Every structure is written in C-alpha cells, then in structure tokens.
C-alpha cells in the first residue's frame, strides 16, 4: 500500500486547506472545523483549476427559500478559485449542484502529528 506523510497536523488549523504532494500527484489537504483531515486531488473536475487557491467556507443550503437564505456547513465546503463550484468535504467531495460529480479523494489517517495520505 502506497502511503506518505504530507504534512504535520500543526500546519493546518481547523477550517484551512493546503496543497501537498502525494507521489507525483497534487493533492489538497483539508481540515474541517471538527479537526478532521481529508485529502482530494487538487484539481477541479470542471476545468482543472488548483483548488488550494480557492476557499473553504460554508454553503447556502437547499433549506433556503426565495427571499430567505439558509447558510451553514461552515468549514465543510471547498469552493473553486475560478468558477466557484462547491464541493462537499464530508460527502466524498461531491459537487453541491450535481452530486454525481465528485473530486477524486484519498484516504487519510493521523499518527502522532503526521498527516498520512494513502490509497
């Protein structure tokens, strides 16, 4: 099994993300507000934008109705730096507007202070 230390836990505060390398691949390491780590291919499924240049944020949800915004999921959504497409970190990187599309993801575990990505 291929695995690699991509960063230290102290390098990422909850709600932050950063680019890293996993072998030859560019990966995106995300840390949600509950402290969990996630890893995806650092490339938007649409036109290939580098996702680490975007932001981690919340989302206006489907509970919203016209004239009444409902905003939550803070720290759980990746937004692409170009076209603003939203991907759900805690739902396998699925795109909010089309859940059939998702970011390629990697497994992650933490040992001591090492964040380890593996397949």
């Amino acid at each position, binding site marked *: 099994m291929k695995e690699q230390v991509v960063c230290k836990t102290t390098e990422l505060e909850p709600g932050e993300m950063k680019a890293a390398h996993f072998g030859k691949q560019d990966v995106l390491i995300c840390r949600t507000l509950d402290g969990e780590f996630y890893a995806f291919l650092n490339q938007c499924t649409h*036109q*290939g934008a*580098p996702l680490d240049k975007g*932001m981690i944020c919340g989302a206006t949800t489907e509970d919203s109705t016209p004239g009444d915004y409902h905003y939550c999921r803070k720290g759980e959504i990746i*937004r692409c*730096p*170009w076209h*603003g497409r939203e991907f759900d970190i805690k739902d396998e990187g699925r795109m909010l507007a089309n859940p059939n599309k998702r970011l390629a993801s990697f497994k992650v575990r933490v040992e001591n202070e090492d964040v380890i990505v593996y397949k």
Partner: protein
Amino acid sequence: MGKEHIRIVDTDIHERVQYKDILKYLDEPFKHYIQNCHWVQEKHMPYTQPTVAGVDRADAKIPDGKPAGTDLAFMQKQLLDDIGHEFGILTSALDPSPSSMHGWYEMATALASAYNNWQIEEWLERDERLYGSVHIAAQDRDAAVKEINRVGSHPKMVQVLLPIDDIMWGDPFYHPIFEAAEKHNLMIGMHHNEPPVYYGKWPRYFIEWHTLISTAHMKQVTNMIFNGVFDKFPNLGLMMIEGGFTWVPHIMWKMDQQYRDLRHEVPWLKRKPSDIFKEQIRVTTQPAEELTKQEFMSLIEQMGTDEILCFSTDYPHWDYDSPTRALPNLDLELKKKIFAENAKSFYPKLPNSKEF
C-alpha cells in the same frame, strides 16, 4: 491538446489599471478631481459577485496584493508564457474607464484618452504578443471620433471597444464612429458592460444577469444588421466578446426568416442577415457551456460555417476558460481555426491576417 502544436490567439484578456497608475496619463483638471476631490467611478452592480474572489480568478491576484490583471510580468507568467499564446487582445477591466459611465462626458473622455496612453505604453509596447482596443466615451460621439483618430493608427490597436449604452448601435448616431474605425482598419469590439440593456433595471440575482448577457448582444447585432450598418461600412467587422456562442444559430435563423417575410421594411439590405453575419461578424467562445463534441459540431453545422468562433479566455476573470479544458477535443483543422486562424483572418492589423 498539445500546447506546443496549437497556436493561440486569445481574443479577450483583461488588463486592469488602478487609479494611482493612470494619474500620470491624465490631464488636469481631471487628475485633480481624482487626486484631491475623491472622485471614484460610479458603480452599478448591486450584487456581490458570488464567487471566491469577486470578479477575478482567486489565483490571479498579484502576489504583492495588487488586483488581478494589473501586472504585466505576472500575466506573462500565469497566462501568456504558460499557455504559449501567439497573440492576445486586451479588452480592459472597465474600471476606471468610460465604459460604464453616465454623465460628466468630459471626465469620461479624459479617462478614455489616459487609458489608451497607459495601455499603449505599459502593455502594447512591452510585449510583442499583446494587441489592444481603443477605448472611447461614446456618449460624446465627436470626442470619441477624435480619440479614434488620435490613437487608431497605432500599429497594435486592432479594434474600437464601443460601450453598450441606451442608444442601439445601428442608430445613425454611431455611424461617424464606424466610419473612423473603418478608416483605421479597426474592427468594433462588443463587450458586455454594466448594465447591459435590461429594460432599465437589474434582475434580482447575479445569476440571471450573467445568464442573459447574450440577450444584449443579440439585440445590438439585430439592430446593426437591419439598420444597414454592415452594408454602409463593408469593411467593418464586429467581434462579439464574452457573450458565449450557443445563441448564434438561433439569431441567424430568426433574422433570415424575418427577412423573408418582412424584407419590404428594410429594402437597403442586399444580403441575407446570416450571410452578413458570416462575412462581417465573429464571436468569442467564452463563457463556453460544457458541450460534448457532438453538441459542439452540431452548433457549427447550424451556423453554416466554422469561421465565426474565436477562442477567448477572459483572463483573469472568475469565469475564465482554459484553452485545454473549455471546449471539447476537436479535430486538428477546426482547432487551428477556432484557436487562432479565425481571429487572424478577422483583424486586419494582426500579423499574417488575410484580406477580410
């Protein structure tokens, strides 16, 4: 698409000036109004553009904190060198510029001249790949004509960027502008600005406005064709920028059908509207919808020619189109046309251009 095999002529690149950088090109008292009197351009858009970095790609911000599009070296690195552009045509960032100004024609006219001088000195003369657009404040038409005559003969100016306003472009009001453009071998560039014609109001949401940008383009081109602009100015060409292209077959069919029925109202038209379109009008690709190759080829077939579309990125804006990802993987000959040859054939002042 192999970068090294396909030449790219990018027909929509947005350079941007900051007020402090344009001051030295601005005459008094207009410089004074900005420097000492806190003048800033009126802003129209009621929305926060709901993207990561407003109007821009979040990764196009200059590392020293300046806004995207303000730095030639960074643009060279991120766009021109990286992708391997043969040529790029600058279309500005509209602020500060006369493009969305109303009132105070003198200020708009002064800004247009300053902008043109800044563009020539800081961009066109510093990168041989870059070509430019003449900015005008068309609300003062005669001043606009003077400006076209002042900078239009610059070898790297290829078009006049005419702001969309509340006078339609087929109106005789604009004809002296077309005449001046034609005299200098400049095409007319139509880029959406804020707001495009929308019954005098903004729609409630940005997504509606952005979806319907092409409707402003359709209204203008219909008006120009039926008012006889392209017959009166046979060497004039129109580049329709940043309105997408999937609407093109619809408007060609619709105008032809109407012409068959209602020709007696516009007897000065000597050609079918779709023929005028094919001969004198070009359309940039961005923002491209996600089409399959089959869907894309079907549209080309419906247009009746593969010479209308010209690739554009819209760099550094948020809805940038990647040259390698935005369009389906097309056959080599068509790819060459869309990515470079169509634009070269259209703009008489681009090197290697053929006669229009």
